[in-house]
């Protein structure tokens, strides 16, 4: 239970708090990507000791006790995947928000809900 892990849990819950309080769609996207960075920090803080070295063969020889002072390569490989997933999901959310804004002219979740119901009612009459 090192301090980095505690801080990443706090950031995760900060993002969650942000999701619950604001009604702005754009801010939801910002808080969702904040949660993702919190999780990436949590994964990399597994087994952390001060003065860790990257798992590259060249730098491994300088460290005497390779058990402790070499960082875990697996979470790093996974977190590169998580970061790329984070970017593409944020990109898709932004595009969907822009199309939503062009149609409903609002950035508020609840107003978008009301407007989307009106659109579906019109579709029924017209359809």
């Amino acid at each position, binding site marked *: *239970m090192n*301090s*980095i892990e505690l*801080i990443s*849990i706090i*950031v995760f*819950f*900060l*993002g*969650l*708090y*942000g999701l*619950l*309080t604001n*009604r*702005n769609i*754009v*801010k939801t996207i*910002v*808080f969702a*990507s*904040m949660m993702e*960075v*919190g999780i*990436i*920090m949590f994964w990399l803080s*597994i*087994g*952390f000791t001060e003065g*860790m070295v*990257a*798992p*590259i063969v*060249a730098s491994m020889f300088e460290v005497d006790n390779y*058990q402790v002072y*070499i*960082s*875990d*390569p*697996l*979470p*790093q*490989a*996974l*977190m*590169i*995947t998580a*970061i*790329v*997933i984070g970017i*593409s999901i944020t*990109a*898709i959310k*932004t*595009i969907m*928000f*822009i199309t939503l804004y062009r*149609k409903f002219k609002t*950035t*508020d979740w609840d107003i978008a809900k009301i407007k989307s119901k009106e659109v579906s009612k019109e579709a029924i009459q017209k359809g």
Partner: protein
Amino acid sequence: MTTTIMSFWLFCNIFVLFQKKLLSMILWLFLSSIIASLGFLFLGSPDVAMAEATASAFVTIIFIVCFENFFGIKNLQNFIEEENSKTRENIFKKIILPAFVVLCTFALFMNFLPQAPQDTYLKNLYILRASTDVGGQNVVGAIYLGYRVYDTIFEALLLLIAVVAVVHLSHFDGVYKKDGKQSEVKNNAISLFTVRIVAPITVLFGIYLIANGAITAGGGFQGGLAVASFFICRFLIFDIYDIPIKKVNKLEDTIFVAVVIMASLMVFHGFFGEIPPNYLPIAQNIYLFIMNLLIGIKVACGFTILLYRYVAIERN
């Protein structure tokens, strides 16, 4: 040392929470992820630090380019929010109830934190056997190109779908307009001159990352992101949109098929098994280099198209 940096990162995230204006919130988010990528260096992972730095830069560019017309108006959102929540007593529903719920869940979370010690079963195996099994000095590169290449195929696939989704979900249908909207601020000579010097350096840095992804920190994704930043300079600063987007899209798909075929041929039929042992390290290095190169080009094409859609077509 790292805990001080991480606590500074925590404060930036707290500030993200309490911002009224949208632009300041986005900039605080960018600052917090830059500090996080600095923190990753102290946690001993240069690869993730590079990926996180370029990722947060791209996300911020996307946010600012797309939400431009929300910054200017005197916080339009708050106006809408006030209009709905006129009454004061609704402050309970808006702030106190969520705070109470999140605090309770946080307390529950901390109560059940697992105390089991860390088990380093896979970590030891990887550090000992990575450079012989897959070759290359960078164990992280060996993992995501050798042991878990099945994951990397799907991650490259995910980027391909993200481009397709962005094109399909946007308001404008798939028309690739040649010249997007010129940015209303004419770019003057000074920024054009300096970017002409800096941009080639970033491309060189990107190609360097792709080339020896297997030897030092770096690799396909980080290098691709760095190369893509050159094309983004062309859109944002030079306002030139002469890149043939349809061809780039086709290039990206063909390269993805090449990546999948390459991976399935080399690793899954035990191709490394048939190579005589003294030629094995050379074959492994060639394989890692080609995979890094393909993924790098694919990531660069993918993000160029993404940014083109935002800057040229979605902005107005």
